[in-house]
């Protein structure tokens, strides 16, 4: 059977969901005629017309906030932010409107919308085309945040997001768009929001990550296997609300944890994961919960040597795992 790339899985899903539910529409820069800067929305304008595939002006505030309004009157908007670096102007609408709408109206109004955000480094994007910024949304109750690492999850999570009743930030790591491929079932399927996946079982140590870093983690785990270290690898998939149970179960088994995150260390998602593990699973821990993260610098620098230095990779992960194993 034909293998589907992560970006193809996204395009397929948009087709299917727009076909299924005419409340679904897209709005974003260059998503129509151009089919998106990475071609994720290719063909959709032709199929669904300019009223459901809207090429917006360069107005990130409106792309996010206008979608909130459309959701309020019964639609299912899928706004696209072209690069996560340009989501900062949308923060006001995402944080103050989307995340708080249900709450501030006492549940009268809801905001079922899926903000697609293209993100991530290792693509030579430099300071302003490599950001993720997931931690801002992670720390905002009322929002859900997902980041698929595989085509299957890309499709399944996107369907769940579109069909759900809550605002979801759906991060698409551009490094993965065409790099990961797999066969997908013909039938309709979803992947539930809020559930992590144990991708590889192991007994000695648990490695937790998401998105691009999941792939670096599994590479590390495979290398470690040869050196006799049996690592369990968990892909969080959903960043918020995150799946404590699955991670805790693994910790019970391995008693050792390494957390991997592409974004800068300080204030990142894995800080919370680590803190929660310590708080709730202290008795099970045999070694300090350790993290491998992006550098604590303002963003991913452009020149290739600096970019690679910034990013976690399999070697760095393996080194930290071994340090923890030796603890």
């Amino acid at each position: 059977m034909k293998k589907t790339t992560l970006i193809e899985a996204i395009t397929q899903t948009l087709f299917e969901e727009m076909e299924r539910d005419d409340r679904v529409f897209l709005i974003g820069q260059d998503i129509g005629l151009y089919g998106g800067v990475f071609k994720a929305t290719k063909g959709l304008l032709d199929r669904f017309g300019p009223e459901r595939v809207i090429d917006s002006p360069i107005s990130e505030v409106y792309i996010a906030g206008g979608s909130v309004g459309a959701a309020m009157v019964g639609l299912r908007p899928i706004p696209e932010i072209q690069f996560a670096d340009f989501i900062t102007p949308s923060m006001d609408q995402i944080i103050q409107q989307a995340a708080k709408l249900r709450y501030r109206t006492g549940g009268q109004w809801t905001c079922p919308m899926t903000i697609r955000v293209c993100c991530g480094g290792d693509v030579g994007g430099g300071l302003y085309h490599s950001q993720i910024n997931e931690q801002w949304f992670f720390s905002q109750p009322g929002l859900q945040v997902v980041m698929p690492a595989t085509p299957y999850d890309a499709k399944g999570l996107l369907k769940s997001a579109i069909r759900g009743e809550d605002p979801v930030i759906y991060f698409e790591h551009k490094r993965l768009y065409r790099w990961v491929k797999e066969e997908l079932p013909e039938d309709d399927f979803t992947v539930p929001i809020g559930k992590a996946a144990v991708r590889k079982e192991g007994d000695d140590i648990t490695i937790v990550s998401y998105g691009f870093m999941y792939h670096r983690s599994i590479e590390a785990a495979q290398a470690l296997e040869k050196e006799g270290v049996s690592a369990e690898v968990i892909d969080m998939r959903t960043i918020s609300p995150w799946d404590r149970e699955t991670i805790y179960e693994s910790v019970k088994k391995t008693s050792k944890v390494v957390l991997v995150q592409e974004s800068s260390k300080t204030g990142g998602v894995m800080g919370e994961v680590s803190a929660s593990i310590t708080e709730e699973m202290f008795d099970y821990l045999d070694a300090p919960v350790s993290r491998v993260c992006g550098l604590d610098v303002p963003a991913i620098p452009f020149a290739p040597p600096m970019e690679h230095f910034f990013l976690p990779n399999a070697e760095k992960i393996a080194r930290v795992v071994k340090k923890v194993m030796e603890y």
Partner: protein
Amino acid sequence: MPATKIAAKPSLKQIGLSKETLLGLYTNLLKTRMLDERFRKLFRQGRFAGTYFSAVGQEATTVGPTYGLRDEDIIAPSHREIGAAVTKGIPLVHIVAQIYARINSPDKGKTHPCHYGWREKGFISPSSTLAGQTVTGTGCAMGFQIQKKDNVVIAFFGEGATARGGWHEAVNYAGIHKLPIIYVCQNNLWAESVPAHRQAGIKDFSDRAKAYGFPGITIDGNDVVLVHKTAAKAIERARNGEGPTLIECKTYRWYGHSEIDPADYRREEEIIEWKKGDPIARAENLLLDLGIHTSKKREAMVEQINQEIDEAVAACEKEKYAEPEEAYNDVYSENFPVRRDDY
């Protein structure tokens, strides 16, 4: 209430509105004013928490556009739209309950006073971020357009809020797509303590529409007939797919920005001058001149409204606050419980 007499007696035909509409506008003006003054009094008596933003003096700018809208049409308000809340038909007891933050408020006490909202009547409970509802309201209009509905949105905001970037992005978008929305700028000359000329390099805020390619008009915001008719025309345009209109209503808030603001940044004469143009008195005199109203009827109306307000206030004062644990509700849809800690 003081009022300036109009020289030649007008006729209903000249006015171009039915008796019923004129009385409807007037009733909403009066009700808004009385409710607003009551809230001011209750706040000074410490009967509810938080703060209160009076719109006394500005009633015509919110009652005028709202009167006659359909239930499914949407009001995207800011913080000074009590007149729109009353006119759109949010039940009085909900309005009072919102101010009192009681359990019987549609928001269950979650958000702060003057943030009225009731979905049944298409009234958005606003965020406090100025022009926030200009953006989401424009999105509602986009939604109506996509759904091919002939509903409209009225987005209200102060002149100060037009300086916000989100305002620009939304209004620009509405201009491109000819969305069914009416932007009503309540220009009360001040944004808190900052005068309008420090908010923009223009005199008439309706000039902003020139940047977006749709009509902008500046009118006397204290003339409820003019406001209503101007808005009605814009609403019709919008329903017909002809796009948005920006209506700047020049008006004035009589009191402080909120009840804790002494508003001593304004000259006394300015206040006196504007009070002379009281929108309620003007409407009342018009009705008297038209012979469709009497001072006796007025007394009866006042009494009746007072009674309604008394009842609503009494009902809310008897109500409880929501239980503390209510804080955990309305975060996500059912399947997503909130993380809880037992401290």
